[in-house]
């Protein structure tokens, strides 16, 4: 019987015939934690009494969520994380290096890998055809110790993409459209697999953006095939040798197929307080925005910085609208400086945040006041997500966010392009 991408990867990783519904014990190629889930996982690991990591060079501790730390308690957590890295000889990615999911894509992920991370947006590496998924601290502790984990092989929802995105419409609009269409639990316990003739026109940045939000439909993974785009990306990263072509079989069995015609998509905004509560940007033009946030593991890549700089070039933010811009990694930050994007942002009235997760999780750097509205390029608009239950978060593309920063209201970017 033909296999989906999820079944193919898990068959290889478990050395068994992994088909939807079966339980497999799979090797883990990369396991990681970040600083808000890490301490619990590291303590659980120590309680297991294994004494050593299964694979220290493939075990990564990221300090990115509270980076730099806003409080004594979190600094103490960071001290613990750093000492654990030294003690067990694993990889540490410290304050300022950037968001875990971006760095996993840049430096680690290879097609066909199984990746588990103590962060729900670990699904991001599905863009590189990794079975990459978020787990809790206990599961990650076990993966640290054993170098393996167990999975129920998920059924797959196939998302066939056709056509071309129109000007002002981006990959973010594809995934917001999909989640709005199937619901925030529309793919619970399932894999999302993206295919169709339009996939070859989606860059790695587009794919990372889409895979990143698979979890917002409840999916276990959001997978793209490993193809020429993947090859080109890995080559640009100096990691060409780890490329392998991975495609689903033509006769793979899917639970459901969904078609999205990219020609028809328009800029979309996800309204408070669930990601599936979508509307067209053009229908929300009366909503005044207090803060625009561009960045995160969803939309903090160099391509996003480029889009934002193009729209903001020679413009100013609306005087009532704060503009925060956060590159997702040190490398992106450096490149954005070299290309002049940062100067454009600062001249447009933006505040630049250090590479990291920043305001996305409401911990620091951009928490909202009572009654305030934020338009964010992040992946989640849950109540209280940005530090205050009495505030509203709208999610949109970088195009829509940058356009709205200029006008002060939710704005269809096609109006300013």
């Amino acid at each position, binding site marked *: 019987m033909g296999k989906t991408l999820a079944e193919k990867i898990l068959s290889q990783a478990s050395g068994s015939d992994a088909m939807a519904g079966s*339980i497999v*014990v799979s090797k883990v190629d990369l396991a990681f934690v970040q600083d*808000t*889930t890490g*301490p*619990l*996982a590291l303590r*659980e690991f120590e*309680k*297991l*009494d294994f004494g050593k990591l299964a694979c220290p060079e493939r075990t990564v501790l990221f300090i990115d*969520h*509270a980076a730099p730390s*806003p*409080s004594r*308690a*979190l600094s*103490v*957590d960071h001290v*613990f994380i750093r000492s654990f890295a030294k003690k067990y000889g694993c990889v540490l990615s410290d304050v300022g290096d950037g968001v875990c999911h971006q760095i996993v894509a840049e430096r680690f992920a290879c097609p066909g890998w199984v990746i588990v*991370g*103590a*962060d*729900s947006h*670990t699904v991001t590496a599905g863009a590189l055809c990794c079975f990459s998924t*978020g*787990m*809790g*601290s*206990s*599961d990650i*502790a*076990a993966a640290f*110790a*054993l170098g*393996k*984990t*167990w999975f*129920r092989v998920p059924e797959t929802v196939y998302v066939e993409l056709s056509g071309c995105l129109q000007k002002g419409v981006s990959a973010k609009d594809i995934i917001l459209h999909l989640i709005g269409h199937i619901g*925030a*639990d529309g793919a*619970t*316990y399932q894999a999302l697999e993206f295919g169709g003739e339009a996939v070859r026109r989606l860059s790695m940045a587009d794919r990372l953006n889409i895979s990143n939000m698979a979890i917002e439909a*409840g999916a*276990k993974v959001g997978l793209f095939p490993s193809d020429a785009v993947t090859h080109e990306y890995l080559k640009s990263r100096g990691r060409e040798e780890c490329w392998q072509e991975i495609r689903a079989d033509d006769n793979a069995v899917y639970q459901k197929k969904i078609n999205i015609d990219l020609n028809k998509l328009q800029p979309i905004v996800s309204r408070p307080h*669930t990601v599936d509560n979508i509307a067209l940007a053009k229908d929300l033009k009366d909503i005044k925005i207090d803060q625009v946030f561009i960045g995160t593991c969803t939309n903090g890549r160099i391509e996003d910085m480029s889009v934002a700089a193009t729209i903001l070039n020679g413009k100013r933010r609306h005087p009532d609208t704060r503009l925060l811009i956060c590159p997702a990694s040190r490398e992106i930050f450096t490149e954005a400086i070299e290309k002049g994007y940062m100067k454009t942002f600062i001249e447009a009235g933006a505040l630049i945040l250090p590479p990291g997760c920043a305001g996305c*999780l*409401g*911990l620091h750097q951009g*928490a909202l006041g009572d009654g305030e509205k934020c338009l964010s390029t992040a992946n*989640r608009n*849950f*109540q*209280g*997500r940005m*530090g*205050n*239950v009495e505030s509203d978060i709208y999610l949109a593309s970088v195009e829509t966010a940058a356009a709205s920063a200029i006008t002060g209201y939710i704005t269809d970017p096609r109006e300013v392009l």
Partner: protein
Amino acid sequence: MLTGKAHKFGDDITTDHIAPGRLAHLRSNLPELAKHCLEDADPNFSVNVQTGDFVVGGKNFGLGSSREHAPLIIKMNGVSAVLAKSFARIFYRNAVNLGLPVLICNTDQINNGDVLEVDLAGGYVDNKTTGTRMTFVPLPSVMLALLNEGGLNPYIKKYGDFKF
């Protein structure tokens, strides 16, 4: 047999409702974090909840983050099981890993404050207040194996590996 009162919540209770991100500085101080459990959905939850009580949700309970702190502080508040129409994937697995039973059943028939009796082995919930009985979907055998050992950590300590 588990007995306690129902604390009823609506659909789509997120991990931010249960263990808000803004309180990340309390994650290495779990007793303090537990006082804020479900605070953004019901500010009085941790004051009102009694040992043995149940958290009852609607659909997609626990969506969002992978933070295991969410089911952990529910458990630390003495909750004996979480019942919902459906669960988000990571929350569901995390709860089982911690030895906290998560039961999928039609929670429309449960009101806030109802007294419930849950028979884990029998697979049913008796609503003592309304006199109705509901069955729940049995846990997959792998998860039952973990739950029976008190969670993933005790399971690994006992077997040293996954023995499925």
